[in-house]
């Protein structure tokens, strides 16, 4: 640091920083030396002291702001019940196992019919849907691959015909939809967290 002429500390900022105990050792020594020969700063210091005292005493009291009595409890419960993102994987696995056990117990209690109706039927439906989707995805990927091969052969014009261009288009749309879905899910979680 270069040496600064002593009267630079008359800026007023220094007086406040001095009062707030925010001057480092060097600046402090310089300011105190200066203070002895500068009645203006001595006077400013007295004025700032008064102002600080007033501000401290006025603002030390918390504003009349009543929090609900069970605030901490409610907030803690809300924070913990929401955000799946913070849960550790181990905790999630434990929850999944617990769910599986509960399903088995429920089925055992309600008999085999319930198992077929309540669990297997939706599972089958989901499996069917998954298979359809996978098939669709496979086709789209195959078509995209085929399309790329065609491009690499330098006959991109042919893309305009038949299902290959459609495949590429579908693949692009699918990628876009996936991106949007992620965004939507994130938005939903944020909204829930702030609710």
């Amino acid at each position, binding site marked *: 640091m270069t040496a600064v002429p002593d009267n630079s500390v008359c800026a*007023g*900022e220094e007086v*406040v*920083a001095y009062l*707030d105990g*925010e001057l480092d050792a060097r600046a402090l020594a310089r300011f105190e030396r200066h203070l002895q020969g500068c009645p203006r700063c001595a006077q400013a210091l007295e*004025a*700032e002291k*008064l*102002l*600080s005292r*007033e*501000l*401290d*005493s*006025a*603002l*030390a*009291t*918390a*504003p009349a*702001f009543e*929090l609900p009595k069970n*605030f*901490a*409890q409610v*907030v*803690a419960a*809300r*924070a*913990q019940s*929401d*955000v799946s*993102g*913070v849960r*550790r994987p181990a*905790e999630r696995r434990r929850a999944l196992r617990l769910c599986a056990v509960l399903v088995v117990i429920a089925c055992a209690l309600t008999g085999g019919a319930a198992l077929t109706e309540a669990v297997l039927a939706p599972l089958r439906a989901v499996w069917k849907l998954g298979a359809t989707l996978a098939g669709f995805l496979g086709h789209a990927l195959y078509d995209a691959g085929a399309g790329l091969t065609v491009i690499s052969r330098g006959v991109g014009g042919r893309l305009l015909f038949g299902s290959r261009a459609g495949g590429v288009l579908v693949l692009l749309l699918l990628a876009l939809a996936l991106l949007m879905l992620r965004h939507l899910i994130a938005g939903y979680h944020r909204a829930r*967290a*702030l609710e």
Partner: protein
Amino acid sequence: MLASTAVLSQLSAAADCDLVTRAVAGREDGFEELVRRYQRPIAAYVYRMVGDYESALDLTQEVFIKVYNSLRRYRSEFKFSTWIYKIAHNSAVDHLRRQGGRELALQREFDGEQYDLPIESRRPSPEQESERAERRVEIERVVSELPAAYRELVVLRHSHDLSYDEIADVTGLPLGTVKNRLFRAREVMRRAFVERGITGV
């Protein structure tokens, strides 16, 4: 007395870390205790920043939920209180921005110019209030009318007793700006006190 304050603050910092560790480990009592410990100062800070009860209550909740969601990212080399004030600061600033941002948009201009508080006719204080309480209300009102960019520094300094370094961490402002704005805020307040006939400041 200073030494005992230092010891106390060290103890409380250690306890904060302990509570964070417990909360991160999934112990529910850890987080609830953290909320209980900081709910009053954070609510007071947010309330002074946004100025209305309902928003302040919502924002305070939001702050603690954000704290919970980012507990894993908290690193113990920072003071927990500074970290939580920073989250509260960001929430309050976002809220003010959503409210129209008029106040914050002016923020940059303040550093180079003079700013005068809008002169408001003095509302009569209830007669039964003691002179001292009346004075406190007046000072509080002057502070509440400061632009957000000044108000928050004054509140963090004089109500929450944060150091300049901590204020710089919380607000993301350079240290020099913190020092300068605190000084300017005092000038603005001093003029306002004179206009309101508050003497002895």
